[in-house]
């Protein structure tokens, strides 16, 4: 069973091809890492799956429906790269608002806040948060919806290693509970924590594999090195 099915997707924006003939599937109940350098098209791809990005051609199926279908908005959670929360409200107010939008009960609010490790800060105004706290506040607003599919755009930027480890452990738990996660990152170090990897470069899909599969295909244990080798092979192949 796959949660996302992308077939021959092309996105052209302002004359430039941002996503070039992508085809892949994301199995349900897994954490898929969407990796690639800044500007490789990760955010555009996530926006296509959420249904807010116009596409040029191809088909994108999300939870067996075309991406962007209204009923999907109840089941898909999304955090943008720059944390989009209301700075002039407390953390609890922010999460409570999203809980109300998704029709979730009040106790889901506290759970979402403590799952991102901000339990002690629920009543603080979000404007006073640090960068890492802001992105976790934004994440809590997505988690409170308890979505079947969670799309996270660089959720771990600016976090210390301990918090990063905790969040990846959380992602693993959510996937074990049946949710599907697509997490973008430009840090290859995070790739080893994923069930599957999608490597994106200049809008093209370099690899769609498990971390182990990628290691054996490139003959190296280091995923950073694996990425470099893939880029070299790709450039030689033209």
């Amino acid at each position, binding site marked *: 069973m796959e949660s996302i099915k992308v077939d021959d997707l092309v996105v052209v924006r302002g004359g430039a091809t941002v996503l070039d003939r992508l085809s892949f599937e994301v199995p349900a109940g897994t954490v898929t890492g969407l990796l690639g350098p800044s500007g490789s098209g990760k955010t555009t791809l996530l926006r296509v799956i959420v249904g807010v990005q*116009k596409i040029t051609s191809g088909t994108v199926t999300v939870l067996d429906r075309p991406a962007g279908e209204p009923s999907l908005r109840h089941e898909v959670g999304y955090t943008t790269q720059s944390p989009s929360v209301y700075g002039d409200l407390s953390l609890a*107010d922010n999460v409570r608002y999203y809980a109300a939008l998704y029709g979730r009960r009040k106790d889901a609010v506290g759970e979402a806040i403590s799952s991102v490790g901000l339990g002690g800060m629920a009543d603080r105004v979000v404007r006073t948060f640090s960068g890492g706290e802001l992105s976790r506040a934004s994440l809590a607003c997505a988690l409170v919806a308890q979505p079947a599919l969670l799309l996270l755009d660089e959720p771990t930027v600016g976090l210390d290693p301990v918090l990063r480890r905790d969040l990846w452990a959380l992602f693993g738990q959510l996937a074990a509970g049946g949710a599907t996660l697509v997490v973008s990152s430009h840090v290859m170090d995070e790739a080893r924590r994923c069930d599957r990897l999608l490597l994106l470069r200049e809008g093209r899909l370099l690899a769609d594999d498990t971390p182990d599969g990628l290691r054996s295909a490139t003959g190296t244990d280091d995923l950073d090195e694996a990425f470099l080798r893939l880029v070299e092979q790709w450039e030689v192949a033209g």
Partner: protein
Amino acid sequence: MNPRLVLATAWRVGGQLRRDRRTLALAIVVPCVLLWLFSELFADSPMIFQRLAPAMLGVFPFVLMFLVTSVAMVRERTSGTLERLLTTPIGKGDLVVGYGVAFAVLALVQASVATAVALGLLGMDAPASVAVLVLIAVADALLGMALGLGLSSLAVTEFQAVQFMPAVAFPQILLCGLIVPTDQIAGWLDAISRAMPLRYAVEAMTTLTGASTVDGRVWTDLVIISGCVLVALALGAATLRRRSA
């Protein structure tokens, strides 16, 4: 439209206003101070004050809500919260009406305080009905909100949003009958003024004040204002796009 989503949004916007004490204080106190200034300015010619005071009660809610809404919407757009909201189950109508409910409550408080000050402290002539006067003020506030919402989509920054104030609100303030009564202005100015919704709010306020019964023209004006609100809200909601290139 889903009442639960409308109320959740109204509560959230209300929460942002409640935490912004300075905006609240300015929104409520400034109209009263300006009314007092006008009454002092025309202390020797109370007739002028009697004409100006109700007209100003029609201008304040409009200006306040126009500014607050256009800045609030530009903020929703630039902070990314609008795009995020449009990926949730909320409908555009829920969002727009939610904003409307929260701002209408603020307008109600502002109009009540300003009316109380004008009637109680500054000696403005009593209107035929205080309830209808406050009703006009709220409709007028919603008009400012609806126009602010529609125009906010043309502004990319808060700076630009504030510039719509002189561009869109000032001509209406000049021609609405506040400065020169509409029956004393040139025909072509009168024609322009008829196309401006604020004129009808000011007309309703001045017709109501000093009269003993609610004139039929007041209701006509209210219908015109409500129509403008609905058209502007529909246009404003149409500018909220779920998908972008």
